[in-house]
């Protein structure tokens, strides 16, 4: 890992989620947003990727560790939580423990992942920024017709696309972080839970995200409703933007980026994490491109 300075809000104060992911990688980024005592985000069939080195995460009933060589290279473990497979879905569509044994299991053993959809955007941003920096350094060191590849317009366009995605996602995240207090009157929406937690200093998932946005509680409480973003709705297109930017940046390394040992693999694994941690968080279903 390099220790390149990251131009985010962390210049003062504790590191943001984005900074952690930038400096320490995917697993560290996930640990930064995951509350080990809260429900684990899983797919409808109960699959998820969890960061290794956090034993409490794995002490859950019905948890089976599965092989996943690629995930392991990023310090993640593929698991299946039988109790939360699709068959346990309740009539309201919410996940219910299937093997609760008459309610014997603790209610927070495992659960859905909607709360992590936006925090995961911050993690993915950190990874993307790190890989973009590395890609630019790589391209600057390669020559074509006597000039560095960064002088090529097509390369510059790709860099611009990735940088624009990062900025757009950062602004959307900041704006979404301002939204919870104005939306606090919607307690029934599960998607808003992490946003409501933004007001709680102890919230592991949301506090660092707020720092990314450089917002204090006072700022949030006085936010203009029209200057904020509906975070739950935004998560879909933010992840979709990151999907595309990830591919753009991975391509910048050429075939070297296709080696399993290349650091850019983190972007691919992060997209797999999204499958469980931000279920359904994509609006990118079209065939237009």
């Amino acid at each position: 890992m390099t220790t390149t300075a990251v131009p985010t809000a962390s210049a003062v104060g504790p590191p943001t989620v984005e900074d952690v992911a930038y400096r320490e990688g995917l697993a560290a980024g996930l640990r930064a947003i995951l509350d080990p005592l809260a429900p684990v985000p899983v797919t409808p069939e109960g699959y998820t990727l969890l960061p290794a080195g956090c034993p409490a995460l794995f002490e859950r009933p019905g948890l089976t560790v599965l092989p996943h060589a690629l995930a392991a290279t990023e310090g993640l473990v593929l698991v299946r939580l039988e109790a939360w497979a699709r068959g346990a879905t309740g009539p309201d569509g919410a996940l219910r423990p299937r093997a609760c044994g008459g309610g014997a299991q603790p209610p927070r053993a495992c659960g859905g992942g909607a709360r992590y959809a936006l925090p995961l955007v911050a993690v993915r941003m950190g990874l993307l920024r790190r890989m973009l920096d590395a890609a630019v350094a790589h391209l600057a060191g390669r020559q074509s017709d006597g000039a560095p590849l960064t002088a090529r317009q097509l390369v510059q366009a790709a860099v611009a696309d990735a940088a624009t995605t990062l900025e757009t996602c950062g602004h959307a995240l900041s704006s979404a972080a301002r939204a919870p207090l104005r939306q606090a009157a919607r307690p029934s929406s599960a998607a808003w839970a992490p946003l409501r937690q933004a007001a709680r200093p102890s919230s592991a998932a949301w506090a660092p995200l707020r720092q990314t946005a450089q917002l204090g509680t006072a700022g949030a409480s006085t936010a203009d409703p029209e200057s904020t973003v509906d975070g739950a709705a935004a998560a879909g297109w933010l992840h979709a933007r990151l999907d595309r930017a990830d591919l753009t940046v991975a391509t910048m390394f050429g075939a070297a980026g296709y080696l399993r040992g290349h650091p850019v693999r983190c972007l691919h694994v992060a997209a797999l994490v999204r499958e469980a941690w931000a279920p359904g968080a994509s609006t990118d279903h079209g065939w237009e491109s």
Partner: protein
Amino acid sequence: MELDDRLRRVRDELREHAGGLRALAMVVDTAPGDMQRHLEASAVRAVHRIGMLPARRGAGRCLELVIGTVEAARGDAGVALACPGPSVAGAVVELLADDAQRERFRAAVADGRTWAFCGITEPAVGSDAMQMATALHPDGAGGYLLSGVKRYIGNAGRGTVGVVFARTGASPASIRAVLVEAPAPGLRGTALDMLGLRGAQIGQLDLDRLPVPPENLLGGHLSTMRRGMWGAIRAFDNVRVQVGALAVGTATAVYEYVRERRRELTGTEAAQLEAAKARIDAVRDLLYRAAAEVDADRGRGHLASLAKLEAVALVLRATSVLPRVLGPGALLEHPLLEKWRRDAMGMEFMEGTSDIQRLNVAQGYLRRAGAGAVAA
């Protein structure tokens, strides 16, 4: 595009074996070095058999291989690439070898247990033929010595015969292709650990004063112009449409996998799958036409780049969008879909990234525009 009887037979035979290739997909992805265990599988032998079909006089080999590759990749692209046989080196041999060289190459891969490599890409310049650095120097006794590094080459570690592109001098006409046999002093092939398309055993060829007898230089029977850069470019065009075939086949595989598992569709999902199918069909037809253009050799090689560009965009889209029809989490719940997503990423890099293909398309269009063909 209308296919004649032979092309339909190629298509139908490999379509029949697509399931057999699919059955090996995850096994080969996990342990690509163990392909020897699967060489007697009927699907693997079918890929070899089609690859060994003799070229038709006056007819298109590129199109035939594209049709076969689409169907094989419809089973699984990684396994298709893991099958022994002429592979892409065969296409180069068909293009540049004389009769004796062609027969030697065919004999070398005839047993169904031999892999072939095709060394084009280099670590520093990718697939930019103009900047190729691998050198072919006279050895002073009528032969040559081959030196350089080829990287990201399919079958590099296990191939015992192949073709390597190099240059004898600085001019575009100095590009030559040579037949290489392994093992040999001065040749070391090493497999690399790749993210996807792992069945291809992509690797590196290190060439250190590898002796090349004069009869191994391809294209000696051709004019200087047609065996130099022209030959290399035609070979690259040929290989590009084969990569496009891997992409279209994989996109088809994803579509069919999702369609089979999601029988009851919402209106939106049905429309999405319908659009996917239409795009797959259109790109496949475009690819066939590009292959026919390569065969026809009418100087419209940029169509090969155009077809690869479209095919790779298609497969990247298909592997990222279509799994969602199965619901959230499909890439974790269906390992094959995750594997195909990794495979698709590799197709972007093979024989030039999409940016390289865009430049080729632009140059082809501008050349025609300059000649007045576009306005006409």
